[in-house]
């Protein structure tokens, strides 16, 4: 029964995608399948998290091949939390897409592709084998390529070319790293790798492989200096697509970085700490400075995605339980808050037909609720108490102060102020300032059904962020448990290989 919970987050999106493809000419059925499928995925992810909390780390061997030989699926608290986040995001975006997806996207298979994307994401979170991880990455990538390019407009093509090229380079690096690692160690099972690599001091090839993999996943996670593809491509896609990309794809990169550098390359993590922290600092700054300079809402938010990646890496750079827990909490927070921000941007753009700050304005008079809906996640991302961003940053900064990383603390706080500045500026430009030229309400009409379908997921995600702030204690305790598990690779290894090494 417990093994079933490990396979369900993969089976459900797969079955939904196949059913969706079978219903190719029936968009109504595809829409229904999308919402039902992601709702089931969310339920199964919740069941997985409960099981992991009750029984500790669980693992299953595909095809019943014993551990280092077959393909292993593993779930610890960290991966179960991430699968849960994927489920929440899948459901929210599926509902939002009901209102926001045009005929063209539906006719070329938007809904089944969304499921394939979720399949790849859940697979990456649950796999315990490095090569299998590569396969899940490719599943996720090919779905994201098509989702990004399917609009067919010129700027989308431009964005898609950059996205495809950079991600394929990252995949080639990843594959080379896997090959070299197999040549040196002779296994690709992550638990087995951890066992074999921790007995010996890492010299020669192993640190090089660690760097190669760090670069590969840094490209995927949009870490400085590999982040430039993200602001160049994300903003061209429809809002629902950017939301799920920014919520899940970069987080998969961060997840894998945290996973392999706490499990396999522990020695490199301590020697490479200055490098990771430098990458953290520059990622935060580059994203925040880029966002400050942008005149268009979607570009501001994509730079903001980059900037927040820096905070998630901070925990890996510091490597104490508190810091890692802060990173995990921050990941959960940013998935909810940033997505709420993107979705409310989508509503603004639907109402006004533009996302350029210069042409927006005065929306507060007509839509005060929407103004609040944008402001809550914006303040949360900036880290204003009592919203969720505050607690994530508090834990990270406390951990950094405790270990004497004062420069990182300074930058993290400075970037928070910049984040507050550019988000609040965007808010006042959209809602507060007088709209140029037209002063009568020329907003596009949105039918009540569509309005509900767009508002429900946005309100849901914004309230998740609010709740995570007000009731931070249980979520933080969960993150702390997950961090303790990550810092004790023995429990992971024994769950996979069956023996305490």
């Amino acid at each position, binding site marked *: 029964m417990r093994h079933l919970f490990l396979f369900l987050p993969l089976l459900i999106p797969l079955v939904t995608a196949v059913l969706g493809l079978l219903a190719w000419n029936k968009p109504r059925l595809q829409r229904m399948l999308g919402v039902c499928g992601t709702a089931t995925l969310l339920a199964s992810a919740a069941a997985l998290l409960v099981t992991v909390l009750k029984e500790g780390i669980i693992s299953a061997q595909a095809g019943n091949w014993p551990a280092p030989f077959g393909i292993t699926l593993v779930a610890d608290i960290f991966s179960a939390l991430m699968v849960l986040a994927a489920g929440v995001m899948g459901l929210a975006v599926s509902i939002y897409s009901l209102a926001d997806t045009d005929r063209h996207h539906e006719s070329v298979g938007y809904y089944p592709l969304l499921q394939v994307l979720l399949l790849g994401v859940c697979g990456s979170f649950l796999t315990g084998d490095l*090569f299998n991880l*590569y*396969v899940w990455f*490719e599943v996720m*990538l*090919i779905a994201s*390529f*098509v989702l990004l*390019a399917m609009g*067919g*407009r*010129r*700027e989308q*093509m*431009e964005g*898609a*070319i950059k996205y*495809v*090229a950079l991600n*394929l*380079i990252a*995949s*080639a690096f990843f*594959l*080379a790293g*896997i*090959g*070299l690692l*197999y*040549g*040196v160690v002779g296994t*690709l099972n992550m638990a087995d790798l951890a066992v074999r690599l921790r007995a010996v001091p890492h010299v020669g090839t192993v640190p090089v492989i660690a760097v190669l993999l760090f670069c590969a996943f840094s490209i995927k996670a949009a870490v400085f200096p590999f982040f430039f593809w993200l602001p160049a491509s994300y903003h061209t896609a429809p809002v629902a697509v950017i939301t799920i990309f920014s919520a899940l794809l970069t987080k998969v990169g961060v997840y894998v970085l945290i996973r392999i550098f706490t499990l396999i390359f522990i020695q490199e993590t301590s020697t490479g700490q200055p490098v990771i922290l430098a990458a953290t600092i520059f990622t935060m700054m580059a994203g925040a400075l880029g966002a400050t300079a942008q005149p268009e809402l979607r570009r501001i938010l994509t730079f903001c995605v980059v900037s927040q990646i820096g905070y998630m890496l901070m925990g890996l750079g510091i490597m104490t339980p508190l810091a890692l827990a802060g990173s995990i909490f921050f990941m959960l927070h940013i998935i909810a808050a940033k997505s709420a921000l993107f979705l409310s941007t989508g509503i603004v753009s639907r109402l006004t037909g533009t996302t350029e700050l210069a042409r927006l304005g005065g929306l507060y008079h007509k839509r005060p609720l929407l103004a609040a809906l944008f402001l809550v996640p914006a303040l949360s991302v900036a880290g204003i108490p009592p919203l969720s961003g505050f607690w994530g940053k508090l834990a990270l900064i406390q951990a950094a102060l405790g270990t004497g990383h004062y420069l990182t603390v300074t930058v993290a706080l400075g970037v928070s102020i910049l984040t507050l500045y550019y988000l609040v500026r965007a808010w006042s430009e959209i809602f507060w300032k007088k709209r140029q030229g037209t002063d009568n309400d020329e907003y596009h009409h949105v039918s009540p059904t569509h309005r509900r379908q767009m508002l429900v997921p946005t309100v849901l995600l914004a309230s998740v962020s609010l709740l995570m702030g007000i009731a931070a204690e249980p979520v933080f305790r969960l993150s702390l448990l997950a961090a303790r598990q990550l810092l004790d690779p023995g429990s992971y290894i024994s769950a996979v290989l069956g023996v305490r090494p």
Partner: protein
Amino acid sequence: MESVLAVVIGGLYAAGMYLMVRRSIIKMIFGLALLGNAANLLIFTVGRLTRGRPPHVLPGELMPSLPVADPVPQALILTAIVIGFGVQAFALVLIKRVYQSVGSDDQDDLVAENRPGGEE
């Protein structure tokens, strides 16, 4: 044999990287294909080259008599080739669409229009 393959892999990586930094999108896709092939050959080579010793288990025995060729790298390469094939097919369709909408395969022309001062 390893040294020959090492040189080939190095050459493929160099050629792939060179093609990727060219402005032509077609060359970029070729570069990606070469990078993929280089990675595959790399897996093949570092997985140890063993000639003429297939990992067959003879009747009545429990394991093949050592040394044998490691089948795992070959399985990995096979998977990687299939994935690479799919991804490259997609990339080719994508550049065809780009060519249709831009009318050029120069990456500079992609951005020239929506940036003031982008063209020389």
